[in-house]
């Protein structure tokens, strides 16, 4: 507290950067907050990854060698919660913090103190969640979907988990409000909504999804809490409730959540592919409308996660058809990316390689998604490793690869230094080979009849599980290389030019390298805006 008087005297020059721990605790700068989000996401990625490796270690061969089945269930549950809420969502918020003001020509986010608050909720939320590893009864083990009545059987971890989810939800909502307010109010003069870079567009849509569905999750988990402690019976048939009602509410949140994780990835890839194809994005407006359609459809497909609960025929038909419809706007996106590369001049730097892997492997995830939409077939696929393979294909080489592509792409602009291209490419190849060895065999396992979330399996599944586990270790450990490449670039990379990628377009590339602490203190001039929006 004694230091505050000192700080008060230090506001004489505008670009003052606070030093030490205060810079981070009191951070209001979008870049500092963005960095904290990204570092936090990386930490959670490794923690969730370690849990995944515990799972794959136990599944390396049949029989129980390492962990108790209860602990195994905790690992699958915590892995999902950490990866979804701790790694991917904060990584996207971190990228939004860094890039949205730079791309729309603003000095900072519109609500800097709210920004600080929404970040600092997260370490507390995840400390609380991780503490459950040490409480009687262990971590939540009922799956990240928290289906009652099973989730109500949790021990002391239960209230900690619920409150942690509440904090994560508040953090996401505040972050989303900040993005909406920034984009709606702080665009540079001359930049209309349909001139914005696609990353801003997909994030804007994501932000609306977050604001719409995070309160739904909060409501669902609060009802669980009162069922557990206050004798309500929202989800207990014995008291007139319905356990399936929880699943409907949960997936009303859960399906838009899937697009919350993937829409910003569409944005990043839509920036990178044109740059390295040396051609503007094909069909910009249809990309925007396709993203909006996907977001709208995501609200009316939720029950495809729960076809086996026993729904009326009309309901099953409706959710089958609406789910199949999603393939149309998603197809438009994939075709647009292909058309962007067509007759381009393509080079293969690390961000492009990750984007191309995204394009191939996300499409494979899309195919298995289409198969899962066929209700009668879904009765066979449901809750098997086929589903596990499907959603990991869209989330790992989908969302996670796009995050990494974005980091490699913008890192030179952020820190003014280039990463090591050779090591970046090595990281790419190890990751891509690892991720396919890890997840492709899981399609076979699921079709052959292996249910998900089991710690041990019949011997007929042994070989592909072993292959999958080997892939998991290759993929997991090669991510250490990612950290090294980024660290090495920040500390001792070669100085980056003002335009590290010669054909990158957008206001983010009009800024000096490294980007100044307060991005656009004066609005960019009309020429800069025009250069950026040339689609």
């Amino acid at each position, binding site marked *: 507290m004694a230091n505050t008087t000192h700080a008060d005297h230090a506001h004489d020059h505008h670009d003052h950067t606070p030093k030490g721990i205060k810079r981070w605790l009191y951070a209001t700068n979008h870049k500092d907050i963005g960095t904290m989000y990204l570092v936090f996401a990386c930490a959670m990625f490794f923690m969730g990854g370690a849990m995944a490796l515990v799972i794959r270690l136990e599944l390396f061969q*049949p*029989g*129980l*060698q390492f962990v108790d*089945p209860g602990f195994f*269930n905790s690992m699958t549950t915590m892995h999902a919660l950490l990866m979804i809420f701790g790694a991917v969502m904060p990584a996207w918020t971190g990228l939004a913090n860094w890039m949205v003001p730079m791309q729309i020509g603003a000095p900072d986010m519109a609500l800097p103190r709210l920004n600080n608050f929404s970040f600092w909720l997260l370490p507390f939320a995840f400390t609380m969640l991780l503490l459950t590893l040490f409480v009687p009864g262990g971590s939540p*083990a009922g799956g990240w979907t928290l*289906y009652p009545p*099973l989730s109500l059987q949790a021990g002391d971890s239960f209230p900690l988990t619920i409150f942690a989810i509440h904090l994560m939800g508040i953090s996401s909502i505040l972050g989303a409000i900040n993005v909406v307010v920034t984009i709606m109010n702080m665009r540079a003069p001359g930049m209309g909504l349909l001139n914005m870079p696609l990353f801003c567009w997909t994030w804007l849509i994501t932000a609306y999804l977050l604001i719409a569905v995070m309160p739904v999750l909060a409501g669902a988990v609060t009802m669980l809490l009162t069922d557990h402690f206050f004798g309500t019976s929202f989800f*207990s*048939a014995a008291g007139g409730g319905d*356990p*399936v009602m929880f699943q409907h509410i949960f997936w009303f949140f859960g399906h838009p959540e899937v697009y919350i994780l993937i829409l910003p990835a569409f944005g990043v890839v839509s920036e990178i592919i044109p740059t390295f194809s*040396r*051609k*503007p994005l094909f*069909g*910009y407006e*249809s990309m925007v409308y396709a993203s909006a359609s996907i977001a709208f459809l995501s609200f009316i497909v939720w029950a495809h996660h729960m076809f*086996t*609960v*026993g729904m009326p*025929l009309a309901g*099953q038909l409706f959710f*089958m058809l609406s789910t*199949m419809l999603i*393939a*149309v706007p998603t*197809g*438009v996106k994939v*075709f647009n990316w*292909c*058309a962007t*590369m067509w*007759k*381009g*001049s*393509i*080079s293969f730097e690390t961000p492009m390689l990750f984007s191309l892997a995204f394009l191939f492997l996300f*499409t*494979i995830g899309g195919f298995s998604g289409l*198969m899962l939409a*066929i209700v*009668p*077939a879904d*009765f*066979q696929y*449901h809750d098997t490793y086929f589903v596990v393979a499907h959603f990991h294909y869209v989330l790992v080489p989908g969302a996670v690869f796009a995050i990494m592509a974005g980091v490699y792409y913008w890192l030179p602009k952020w820190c003014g230094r280039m990463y090591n291209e050779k090591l970046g490419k090595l990281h790419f190849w190890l990751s891509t080979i690892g991720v396919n060895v890890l997840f492709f065999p899981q399609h076979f396992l699921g*079709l*052959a*009849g292996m*249910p*998900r*979330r*089991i710690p*041990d399996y019949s*011997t*007929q599944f*042994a070989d*592909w599980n072993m292959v999958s586990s080997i892939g998991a270790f290759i993929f997991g450990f090669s991510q250490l290389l990612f950290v090294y490449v980024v660290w090495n670039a920040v500390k001792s990379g070669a100085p980056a030019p003002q335009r590290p990628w010669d054909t990158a377009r957008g206001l983010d590339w009009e800024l000096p390298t490294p980007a100044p602490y307060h991005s656009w203190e004066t609005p960019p001039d009309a020429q800069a805006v025009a250069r950026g929006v040339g689609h």
Partner: protein
Amino acid sequence: MINKARKTLPALAALALGVAPLAAHADWGGLNMPVGVTELSKQIYSLHMTIFWWCVAIGVFVFGWMIWSLVAFRHSKGAKADTTIVHSTKAEIIWTVIPVVILVIMAIPAARTLIAIEDTRNTELTIKVTGYQWKWQYEYLDDGISFFSSLDRASNEARQLQSGIDPASVQDYLLNVDNPLVVPEDTKVRVLLTAQDVIHAWWVPDFGMKKDAIPGFINELWFKVDAGKTGTYRGQCAELCGRDHGFMPVVVEVLSKADYAAWVARQKAAKAPAETAPAEAAPAEAAPAEPTVAQAATSVPARKG
């Protein structure tokens, strides 16, 4: 670019040839969904394969397009970008309409099968299945037969943490039970599903059917095993239900109609004198007639080794 392809293709072919014999000899289990033994499972399998081949066809087109672009338009080979290609309403209409047509083509047979799945009229036998943590209870509502079905002893011993027992030495490891469900072939069987504690899911891949067993609610499904397809069919609980979720298999013994009638008679006879322990006594009675049932009933596989 052709030179490079000439170098790569033989390498890929060699790799494929190298892997093929390996795959042929190793026990990789099934790679695909079982066709199954019921009319519905066959319809589902054919839907699965149809949508799979549609995906392959679209994949060949999309991936072909991508790979062609990546090979033909390389910056390193001096490709010049044609920056005028930024929009084409015609192309966008085409790649919106064609997927819609494919989806409609797929949706029609899928809807037809779904309607058949939901048609539970004219069933000939009704069995109530109740999920417990972690076993199944089977009740034959018309015949008053009722018993529990849990993981067999050999699997249960081997699956303990660091048991030291090689799972490969246990027959049908984790897919065997003490008392299997017994049903007749060529009979439309209605299964009523519920649960006592948490949600479970009853699944036999060869029957094509999976449905949740939800406490406080009754779900139903039906299956009709084709005539001549007697035998043992195995599945597992498919909804996370707690610590031992992985250890509550579903085993169904399909008998000929005559054998089934004999089995029912024996169950009833066994129940009459020994009122005190019907569930225990019931399956043992089946021993002389049906070797497969006998093996399941005695728990520790006699044929082992």
